[in-house]
């Protein structure tokens, strides 16, 4: 059993040696390639993977922060918009209230002014009417007096008599009474 195992190991060893010889596998070349690969791996890690992965991580964090900030700004904007809307609503309500009040005051004032104007106008009309009546009376008196004078003068001219002051007074009074009737 042991001999068979040893034989297999020996065969395997011969095959490996033969294969290595055929394909030029030997320690100096092998170690040289291993060292070359290790240097490449180390320098790529140092100059490529480490800084690039660090930068990518930083960029990822910046993007995450940016998104977070954007979300925050969005929320703040929404809050500001809500506050603005609330202020607008309040202002609108206040403005409507003020407008109603102003309208009510204006209506009241207008009513008052209208009443005043009507009263004033009525007063003016009454005064005018009174003045007109006074003028009418005064003109009527003057007219009667003139007619009386004309009648006396006509009577003197027609009759050729000289009328006494009593006659003239009586004639003027008779004329006035006739006109008034």
């Amino acid at each position, binding site marked *: 059993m042991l001999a068979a195992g040893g034989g297999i190991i020996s065969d395997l060893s011969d095959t490996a040696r033969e294969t290595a010889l055929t394909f030029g596998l030997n320690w100096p070349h092998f170690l040289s390639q291993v060292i070359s690969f290790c240097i490449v791996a180390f320098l790529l890690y140092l*100059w490529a993977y480490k800084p690039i992965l660090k930068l990518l991580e930083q960029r990822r964090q910046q993007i995450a922060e940016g998104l977070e900030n954007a979300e925050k700004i969005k929320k703040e904007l929404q809050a500001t918009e809500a506050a603005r809307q609330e202020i607008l609503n309040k202002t609108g309500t206040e403005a409507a209230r003020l407008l109603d009040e102003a309208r009510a005051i204006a209506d009241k004032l207008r009513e008052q002014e209208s009443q005043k104007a009507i009263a004033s106008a009525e007063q003016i009309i009454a005064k005018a009417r009174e003045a007109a009546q006074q003028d009418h009376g005064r003109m009527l008196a003057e007219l009667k007096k003139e007619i009386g004078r004309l009648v006396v003068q006509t009577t003197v001219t027609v009759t050729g008599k000289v009328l006494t002051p009593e006659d003239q007074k009586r004639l003027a009074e008779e004329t006035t009474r006739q006109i008034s009737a």
Partner: protein
Amino acid sequence: MRTVISLALLFSLLGMPLCRAVLPADAESDGALGATVAESHDTVAEEGGHHGLPPAAPDLFHIGPLPVSNSMVVTWAVAVGLIVMAQRSTRRMQAVPSGIQNFFEWMVESLYGFLDGVVGPELAKKTFWFFATVFIFILFSNWFGLIPGVGTIGWGHDTEHGFQVVSPLLRGANADLNMTFGMASIFFVLWLVWAIQANGVKGFVLHIFGPKGDTTGFMKIMMIFIFMVVGVLELVSILFRPVSLSFRLYGNIFAGENMLESMALLVPWLGWLIPIPFYFLEVLVGLVQALVFMLLTAVFTLLICTHEEGHEGAHH
């Protein structure tokens, strides 16, 4: 990005006219470089005028006692290119990315997202550096291997079918088993470390050999025996993972390069046209293989680091 395109165009323009401007091996035989190349040339020649890429990457020169193969040159070129691009992309980083920074950010972010989806956020954070490097390095190495000139400029000799390159100056990094086996071995070590970190030594052993499901009495004894046997099989499967991972990648890329060369030589006067569809195929294969290697390693890691509900209490 403009720089990358410019570099690719430059390589293409330099490589295309040189595709056939091969160097005769004999002319270089005086120096160490020529000696190494001539050696490999001779080996190949002895094998009977072999066409296509040799399975092993030939050495170009030595730095002290260390041999430098043509695939190692490509590995270093890709490594330098990636490192320079990475350094340039992150030297002066802007909050709004542009140019090469944008490209690297896109690549890293996409890979991270993808791996996060596969292995989960915690494991992705811990293991991303490895899987990303595996994917990026394999992908760019595979695509670098498709630049005209890679595998076609080099040392060779005249044959009946014309000049044959036997030792290319450049060779796809993943067309060398040392590279693919190296990455698979690194993964194996890391997998072991991550598995023990996640489960503890006892939990790790239980994860492999422990019986699953709630049974009692005789059935429990049976289940323990069955899961011991299954555990042995699982252990063999785990031990062979570096082999399967490395040979899968190596085989695909090596075969792709050989196929491109074969297509180019199929009808000599149409050698410029026939490989074109296969180039597109190889672009896709390069991407798919990078993805397969990364996904398999990620899934293996996920499987060992995921706690089963039944064992949750035992591990903590």
